[in-house]
């Protein structure tokens, strides 16, 4: 009886330790203040909106998609996404980019665009499986 609990307890402890460790490793913060995004230099999910006036650029050779994003207080930052323009990008009311600010621009590995009405969201989803 006692052995059973010790055995089980150790397994549970190892499991929980592993989970918490991985959780801290894979943890990504949401951030809607670009001043903080730029200061941090670590992977975040930055939320803001596309600066329409500055248009966007599709680079065919390097396969990058570049545009400018602004947060609520108007701070702007350049975003470079390795991939193509997401579905619905032009009509998005807000954009969530996942990545890291480095060398003067935000290097995005994922873009989520959100559209004005329900059920209308598009995503450049890359499935992990």
């Amino acid at each position, binding site marked *: *009886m006692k052995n*059973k609990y010790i055995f089980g307890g150790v397994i549970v402890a190892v*499991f929980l330790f*592993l*989970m918490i460790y*991985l*959780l801290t*490793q*894979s*943890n*990504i*913060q*949401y951030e809607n203040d670009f001043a903080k995004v730029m200061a941090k230099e670590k*992977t975040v*999910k930055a*939320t803001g909106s596309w600066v329409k*006036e500055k*248009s*966007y*650029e*599709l680079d*065919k050779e390097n*396969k990058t998609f570049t545009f400018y994003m602004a947060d609520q207080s108007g701070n702007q930052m350049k975003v470079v996404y390795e*991939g*193509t*323009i997401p*579905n*619905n*990008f*032009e*009509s998005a009311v807000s954009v*969530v980019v996942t990545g890291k600010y480095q060398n003067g621009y935000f290097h995005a590995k994922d873009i*989520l665009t*959100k*559209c004005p*009405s*329900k*059920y*209308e*969201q*598009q*995503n450049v*989803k*890359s*499935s*992990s*499986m």
Partner: protein
Amino acid sequence: MIGSIVLSLALASSLIAMVMYFLTFKGYQNTLNIGRIAYHSMAMLVIAASAILTYLILTHDYSYKYIYNYSSNDLPTGILAATFWAGQEGSFMLWVLFTSIVGIVLQNYSSKRGDLEPRVMSVFTLSTSFLLVMVSPLFKNPFAYIWTEPVFLGVKDISSAFLNQPWIQNFLFSDSSTNQNFVKMGPELYAALSSAGIAVKDFVIDGKGLNPQLLNFWMQIHPPILFLGFSMATVPFAFAIAAMMKNDYNHWVKQALPWVLAGAGILGLGIMMGGYWAYEMLGWGGYWAWDPVENSSLIPWLVGVASIHTLLVQRKTQAKGGIGKYAKTNLILSIMTYILVLYSTFLTRSGVLGDASVHSFVDPGMLVYLFLVIFIGTFIVLGFGMLIYRWKFLNEKIEGEESLLSRDLALFTASVVLCASALIVLVGTSAPLFGNAVDTFFYNDMHIPLAIIIGLLNGLSLLLKWKQSDGQYLLKKSFLSITLSIILTASMIIFGGITDIMMILLGLAASFSLFVNLEIAIKIIRGNMKMLGAYVAHIGIALFILGVIGSAAYSKHVDIDLIKNEPKEALGYQLIFTGYNPIENNTKYAFNINLKKGDKNYTISPIMYISEFNNGLMREPAILNMWTKDFYISPLGYDEGTNDSHNHGQVIDLEKGGSSELNGAKISFDRFDMPAETMQAMQEGKDFQMGAVLSLEFQGKKESFELLRKSVSGQVQFTDYTSQNTGLKIQLLNLTAGKIQISVSNPNEAAQENVQQNPKEVLSISASVKPFINLVWAGVLVMFVGFFVSVSRRLKESLVK
């Protein structure tokens, strides 16, 4: 109106049924029949309300807000009917509908099994009551009229017969930035329409339409199956509470088993159908992305499947008399399954995941949020309150020891591993509640070791005897399976090039479980067929894991540009883009790609189109399905090779009176040209134009010109100007209050580039090879069959006294 009345009556009946069933449980006579009548009336009223909603959808009655928001005249009938569950209100309605129907079966089932009915049904009707409050006019009522709150409707959806009426002018609005006209629908307009004797459904003649991503076969079948699974999760909860009400833990186990099995089978199928939809239509490039909405339906499934394993142990150990092992575990898991279904609803409907999910659900408002919290809270308090109340009694009934090598313990371990998996997904999915998110590698890394344990247990537990087994016996019995699985794993390493140690272990564990289960299943087929269920389901999960190893861990992927008619090698295939052609009445474009390997030739066509619904570019993948793999092409973009104003020329913003210097040329924005009639035309929604007068100064020569922003039947156009003097082309891009945006380019230079390089049509694609993905689908289907073979066996057993 009638719909809301029917739903309110249904709520009243549900409450009556709940009270009457509870009184019956408390020992009152005469109340059972009232309860039954009330329950059936409720179910009939819910079915009637659903029929009314379907009828209103099919007849395009846009005086209902829900119907206006999600459907339109051009939808084919099947899809039109499916708009029933396209939004929150309707999907709650679908949930109520299925729960009511499940309840009819449950009422019949429980009435034949002793004194079960009043207890089970009083808990069950608590759940239907909550759901009916949810769809009542207070919260998410699908029968809300369009004019209850002011809303702007596009002019195209309004019957043109009324647009020139004088009384409507007060309700017409125009958005000058997009140049679209709207009608403000609200109580005032409704009053105006009523006094003019016009029915709203004659006034609003078309709806907003459905998101094009939902416009397909899977929309018709995936949500109903998922919601049926959710509805069935209510049943084990009701059984567990019923057991605690009576303080009798013997019968509920075998009575609940067929329900738990059927519910898990259906929910599992529904979840994977969503995965197939994402893979085949939405072009995610895979079937599982750990998206919060996928996750939140996976969590209750995992816990439900965990409960199956411990329920089996309890049932088996009851044979000695007593209540059997894991009585408390089973109560907890059955309660948790339903609470997690509710939690899943909370996550996806309360707007808390707003930033995190592909499935977007608009913030439903504080009231709905609070109600969802109360809904879950009630069931948590009920479930765990009862448990605490009975805890002491249950503790006294605790039973014996198990040996390390017994089927008891193996099944319990399986249940623990499944719960661990559920916990991982739960923690990751709940992270957005705390302003965080987790990367998907969190889920993957955590699940690989768990999947290895699952594979091993899957094989081992079926070899073990219930009480105790010795190692010698085990080795002898599993010799064939071990040999075969080593051979299969070795061939995966040699032919499949699998080198990752975790993947090799996972492959070994999965093939071990596959062969053990196959071996036993083959023996059973010769004997007692009804015992087959568990083995079939486990063969399914083994196939599924093998499929995941191939299609997820060993999928190869490249992004390439295909120039028209130029062959390109990728992933061992030769690809040629041969051009595109319009399909489906010119609404979409199929981009044809020839695939060649050896002497085999295939053509597949990914699809792209601009959706009118959201003015966005939509993409659909194309899949070449082969026995051992899929070749998957997701379109990224298409370039016709002509000049694109986005990429050429320099973009300049100019304020009124401002100027900019470019290659020695000075461009100034002098003034706006806005005649008085423009203002009038703008307000009346007619065609109009606005101008910007600019001047260009180059080497002392000055020329003045005007660029126009034209609005022709709702479409905005911009003009350009080419200067003879400088050869510069100036194109107006935007014109707003006080500011313009122009692009300046030199067509001569651009033309020179083009002479050397003929315009090329380029299709950009993302191509991947998914080995053994068919095993994933086959595994899920086999698992589903296994669940239902088990249901038929356990159904018979549930009647035996």
